[in-house]
């Protein structure tokens, strides 16, 4: 989940973008972890995450291998969190994305009470995550800061594209596709909601924040 560390955008654009994830450590506490990861997901679902997923199996927005041509007129857009539960057959990272830090705080309190024994991390504004910990009566163990991008920055696209594409840190959402979605929204050929859902299908870990993407697309449409 280093893929969540370097999301691009000013702090005010990240106030509603938190990923909380659970993972066992390879070869140490994997035994019985699948059930604990499912418990983590069930607790997370109580608070209405905008996305969930498992790193090795995919998120709740997935591509379909069997579309019919009718999809071009009416395509099922709905997410299916149940697929994340049912596909979970190995112990790897499970994540939930929230657009409200209060929900993260409530989940952290639940997770503390559940005492799963798995490593739990919050990726987002470091101060916000630390405040969550304190209010839940937790002393944070470790912290990793993002120092951003360095080197040949001429290779980077504009900020709206970057805000969208870096929401999949593994790079599955290409800059070109994010730009295409922005263009389709600006030309009123897609709604921001539909464009965000389309992009979310490429993120195999389920960490793409659709709520934030919709805000970015609305801003890009108006040239803000």
């Amino acid at each position: 989940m280093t893929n969540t560390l370097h999301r691009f955008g000013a702090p005010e654009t990240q106030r509603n973008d938190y990923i909380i994830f659970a993972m066992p450590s390879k070869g140490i506490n994997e035994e019985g972890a699948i059930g604990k990861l499912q418990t983590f997901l069930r607790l997370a679902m109580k608070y209405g995450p905008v996305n969930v997923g498992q790193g090795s199996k995919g998120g709740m927005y997935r591509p379909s291998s069997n579309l019919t041509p009718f999809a071009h007129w009416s395509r099922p857009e709905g997410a299916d969190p149940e697929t994340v539960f049912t596909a979970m057959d190995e112990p790897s990272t499970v994540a939930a994305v929230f657009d409200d830090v209060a929900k993260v705080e409530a989940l952290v309190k639940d997770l503390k009470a559940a005492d799963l024994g798995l490593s739990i991390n919050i990726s987002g504004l470091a101060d916000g995550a630390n405040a969550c910990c304190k209010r839940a009566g937790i002393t944070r163990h470790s912290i990793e800061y993002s120092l951003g991008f360095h080197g040949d920055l001429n290779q980077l696209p504009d900020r709206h594209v970057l805000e969208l594409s870096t929401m999949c840190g593994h790079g599955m959402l290409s800059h070109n596709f994010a730009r295409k979605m922005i263009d389709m929204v600006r030309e009123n050929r897609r709604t921001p909601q539909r464009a965000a859902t389309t992009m979310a299908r490429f993120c195999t870990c389920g960490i793409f924040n659709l709520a934030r993407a919709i805000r970015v697309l609305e801003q890009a449409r108006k040239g803000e």
Partner: protein
Amino acid sequence: MERQVEIDDRKCVACANCVPVCPMGAIYIDPAVNRATVNLDECVECFTCYRGMSKEHMSPTLVRAVRRVAKWLRFRFDPEPDVCPTDALTPQELTWPRTVRRAFSDPLVPHESTGIHGRGTEEVKTNDVTNRVKEGEAGFTIEFGRPGVGVRFRDVQKMTTALAPLPVEFEDKNPVSSLMTDRATGALQPDILNEKVMSAILELKTGLEHVPAVLERVEAVAQELDTIVSIGVATRCDAQGDDQVAPILEREGYVFFRGKTNLGLGRRPEPAAV
């Protein structure tokens, strides 16, 4: 079996939906044959096109005919942008050293060296269980190629060889470390140097007192590379939850606000009773 992605000429209808989907910009419509084509030198085998796009299984002949009529009538066809209408993307067998591309590009493939998906390393995400980075230490994750630019291992090697002489310890359980032939010099396996991957994370740790020197070296070498370098710096917090790395980063002039916070809820299993 490892496979590389190719596009079936018999099925491709040149709809170009896969062109912007490719994170490396390696797919294009070849005007000579009017089919989508993969530039295999730039392709990193991330499988985004094959796995990320939804698929219809329509007759290529029918789709070509419809597209031809629509084009002749000047109709603007506005299909779903993430669909391959004829399921033309087909995986082919992949051999060494090309297998390294997929390992470092497709997050659903676990790295052989660590058994971990994604970029193949746990970093401080499981520090509460592994104690990988201790108090007084700083853990670095130096990621090449992110976001969406890609990197060849010869560029990664420029960094590893530049950092090796510093008082740093390369992480054992890391896929880039596993490709080193000599940890003392930071040299990588010569047969992979021209291979391009989506991104690779070099992981090392050092004493907090060496953080400025490591950052200075990373920044300097990053300017010489044909890619982007994303830097993460981690540390173990003290009993009050405070960390000693933030003041150092502030002194060095870095602006940082985003982070990954390990809550410390993980633990090792109890030893079995004898």
